[in-house]
């Protein structure tokens, strides 16, 4: 995951390098032990027969399906101070999504790109090549997943959670720093996991797909009448990778075909246990992947590889006191380990320091952190739901090293960091149908100081079928350890990096047109400042600085239809005009138009469904300003359940028409864009017992 890795050399420094931190194994063990339970009421499908069996009193506690992440408590989508999309486990199965990346690709206004090593998510015109998606915060059951070295939002096979363990994905658009602090610049994506009650037994699942990709999973979970519930899952992915990716820049080597692109192995575990108000949840995943043509001038060398390892544990206690006090307190642990091996020729970036024909330059990064958070909410004077919280986060290891295999060490930066945050939010029900949601969060970072980010939303429902929202918010992305501490000859230490900021203005109008059809519309204006980029300082040296700014303005429209027997259709269109503040040029990797269509048709009532999806985007430019064309991709999936008792079977074809297209990549690549996968397939079998 390195940007500019090879540009550096400290000729004077030679160092002893211990390669593997003992943390690695310790962390995986910890994660296994702390397998975790959580937190958030996953809303199960509402079944009227089950509800009819409840007493009237219990019925009054049944909640309408909700979003948690928008206000840090459950609320209906129309009351949320953001434009929210929910993707449920059922939709994920019917559409055959294999990764979080594919889930997000289906969401109005979102798009993802890949450089062969990593996948990146962006929205509404923002997905700058070379960044790691740190402007979108991803949480699992409210636990922050962006790491503290690159701030990455992991969405591909390196993401910690297997998509089969997702109960629902809450996509909360707009600034979220008023509750979450760092990284919640453009959106917050909260993943609610399946708990013991959602399994009620065991599940084995296996799949086979293109590029010799195999996956396997075993999960077991249950809930007992005394309230104890647990879920435990282990999974494995093995892929030979795609060796048919053509790189025109390297046409002279192996006819332009690199060795397998994305050959990977990913073991993962995830677990949760809950009893009364207590829950413990955690997971571990490590992806090792070959990158035959990323961040290097050496092509088709199978030694090029990256490994990303993530683990976390989150212990929480949630209690509802008399008088409507609700207390949530949690302590958590995070681990992130990255290693990158980059074969470099002696001519790497014109640098004559590499003596041999090919040197393996290595990155080794490690983050270990602990944190805790306390949150209290209470209803005051009937109309106010007040939430206050405080969070402390300590990175006790924040290490980055760069060295040549068997050679000199160029960088050995050992740092620590502290962050303190405090937030307050008031949801004021002015009238039955008018809500004012206002809040702000204060954050202090040991690296740059403090920042305050407010959000205010007015939500008006003149009748039950119509909702208007007016939202203003500020949010930030703090400079990460990589931007702060990764230095090299000819590069200066970044001085006084400030956070990137956004001022966001949004108007939403949602209308239930009839019982089948919902319309959602939004217009937005984003003003982003102090974007962190490579630039030249006063000495003429390269360094990271708060040098860029950008704006994005546009609108969205979505039609969502639900009919009897499982018919579903969604159609959406997003217009985004995102431009650089200095030049007025359109941002790179920023499509002006995004259009999506998704149709689910029942072929056999309740049992067999066909899903057809079209994802289209208009031309995007590379960092160098060349267009990459406008791909229209189609996916087709057949999903069946309960034809045989307990058996789910699905078969999907992705990029159905074998469309050839490329995604723009960062400026540290020799190439300007990377060709993406053509037509591929997957068949998957799941058995429940």
């Amino acid at each position, binding site marked *: 995951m390195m940007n500019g890795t090879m540009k550096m050399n400290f000729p004077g420094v030679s160092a002893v390098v211990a390669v593997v931190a003992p943390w690695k194994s310790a962390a995986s063990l910890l994660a296994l032990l702390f397998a975790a339970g959580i937190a958030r009421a996953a809303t199960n499908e509402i079944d009227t027969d089950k509800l009819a069996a409840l007493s009237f009193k219990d019925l009054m506690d049944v909640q309408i399906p909700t979003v948690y992440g928008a206000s840090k408590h459950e609320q209906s989508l129309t009351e949320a101070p953001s434009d929210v999309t929910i993707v449920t486990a059922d939709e994920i199965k019917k559409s055959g999504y294999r990764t979080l990346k594919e889930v997000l690709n289906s969401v109005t206004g979102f798009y993802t790109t890949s450089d062969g090593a990593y996948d990146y998510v962006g929205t509404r015109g923002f997905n700058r090549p070379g960044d790691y998606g740190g402007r979108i915060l991803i949480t699992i059951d409210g636990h922050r997943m962006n790491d503290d070295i690159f701030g990455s939002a992991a969405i591909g096979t390196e993401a910690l959670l297997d998509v089969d363990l997702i109960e629902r994905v809450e996509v909360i658009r707009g600034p979220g720093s008023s509750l979450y602090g760092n990284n919640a610049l453009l959106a917050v994506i909260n993943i609610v996991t399946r708990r013991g009650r959602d399994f009620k037994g065991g599940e084995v699942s296996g799949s086979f797909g293109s590029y010799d990709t195999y996956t396997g999973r075993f999960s077991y979970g249950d809930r007992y009448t005394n309230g104890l519930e647990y879920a435990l899952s282990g999974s494995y992915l093995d892929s030979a990778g795609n060796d048919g990716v053509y790189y025109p820049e390297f046409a002279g080597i192996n006819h332009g075909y690199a060795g397998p692109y994305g050959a990977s192995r990913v073991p993962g575990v995830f677990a949760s246990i809950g009893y009364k108000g207590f829950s413990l949840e955690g997971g571990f995943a490590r992806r090792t992947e070959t990158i035959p043509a990323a961040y290097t001038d050496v092509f088709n060398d199978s030694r090029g590889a990256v490994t990303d390892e993530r683990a976390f544990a989150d212990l929480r206690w949630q209690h509802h006191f008399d008088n409507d006090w609700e207390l949530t307190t949690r302590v958590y642990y995070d681990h992130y380990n990255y290693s990158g091996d980059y074969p470099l020729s002696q001519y790497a970036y014109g640098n004559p320091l590499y003596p041999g024909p090919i040197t393996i330059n290595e990155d080794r990064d490690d983050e270990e952190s602990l944190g805790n958070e306390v949150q209290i909410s209470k209803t005051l004077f009937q109309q106010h739901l007040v939430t206050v919280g405080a969070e402390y986060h300590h990175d006790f290891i924040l290490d980055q090293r760069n060295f040549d295999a068997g050679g000199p060490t160029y960088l050995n930066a050992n740092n620590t960091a502290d962050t303190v945050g405090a937030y307050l939010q008031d949801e004021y029900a002015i009238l039955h149908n008018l809500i004012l949601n206002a809040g702000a969060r204060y954050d202090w970072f040991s690296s740059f100081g403090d920042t305050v980010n407010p959000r205010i939303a007015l939500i008006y429902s003149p009748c039950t079928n119509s909702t208007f929202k007016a939202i203003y918010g500020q949010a930030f992305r703090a400079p990460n350890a990589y931007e702060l501490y990764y230095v090299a000859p000819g590069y200066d230490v970044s001085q006084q990096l400030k956070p990137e900021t956004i001022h966001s203005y949004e108007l939403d109008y949602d209308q239930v047109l009839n019982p089948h059809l919902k319309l959602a519309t939004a217009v937005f204006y984003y003003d982003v400042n102090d974007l962190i980029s490579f630039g030249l300082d006063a000495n003429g040296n390269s360094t990271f600085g708060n040098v860029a700014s950008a704006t994005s303005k546009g609108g969205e429209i979505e039609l969502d239809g639900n009919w009897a027997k499982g018919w579903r259709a969604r159609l959406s269109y997003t217009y985004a005009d995102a431009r650089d503040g200095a030049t007025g040029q359109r941002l790179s990797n920023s499509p002006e138009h995004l259009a999506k269509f998704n*149709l689910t048709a029942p072929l056999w009532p309740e049992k067999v469904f066909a899903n057809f999806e079209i994802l289209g985007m208009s031309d995007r430019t590379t960092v160098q300003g060349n267009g990459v064309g406008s791909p229209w991709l189609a996916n087709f999936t057949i999903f069946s359940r309960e034809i045989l008792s307990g058996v789910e079977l699905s078969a999907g074809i992705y990029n159905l028409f074998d469309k050839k297209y490329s995604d723009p990549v960062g400026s540290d690549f020799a190439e300007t864009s990377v060709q993406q996968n053509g037509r591929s397939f997957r068949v998957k079998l799941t058995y429940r017992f």
Partner: protein
Amino acid sequence: MNFHRRILLRLVWLALIAVATGLIKPGGVQAEATPEYKIKAVYLFNIVRFVKWPTNAFSAADSPLVICVLGENPFDTELQKLMSGRLVGGRTVVVKQEATAADARMCQVVFIPASEHANLRLHLATLRNAPVLTIGEIPEFLGDGGVIEFFVQQNKVRFDINKAQADAEGVQLDSQLLSLAHAVREKTGKQEEN
């Protein structure tokens, strides 16, 4: 721009396919009730068990209890499914959809959904002085002479009761039902919170 035209063409093409395959046939396919209305359907199912109608509300001793939904039915088939095969006060239950309040005067329960916002006053005026339990969800429902009004608070369905109106129509509400209400209006304009 060329791209605009292409998007437009594709959307038109998709719409044509959708219409051709019968997907978007107005009224041709039945809606599934949203989770909110599934919950509200179960509320209705619970509420009717705590209500006593005057004998003149029924044409015969063995007449069914009739629940009518005015206008568009947001419950889809959930209400029918819930009520089928059950007895309330010894009577079978029938669920009907009626277009006008005049047709609904013979029903024992009338649900007026949000979509009837424009006609609310007219409906309630037509149903006045009939032994009908009116249930609605429009904010002005009680003020305009309805008996039970649903609203959503912190994602949970709640209801207010206009007991004065129920009394005027001869519909008796069990004290247990009154105790579950968020607020009960005893007399016109006066309101007590539970």
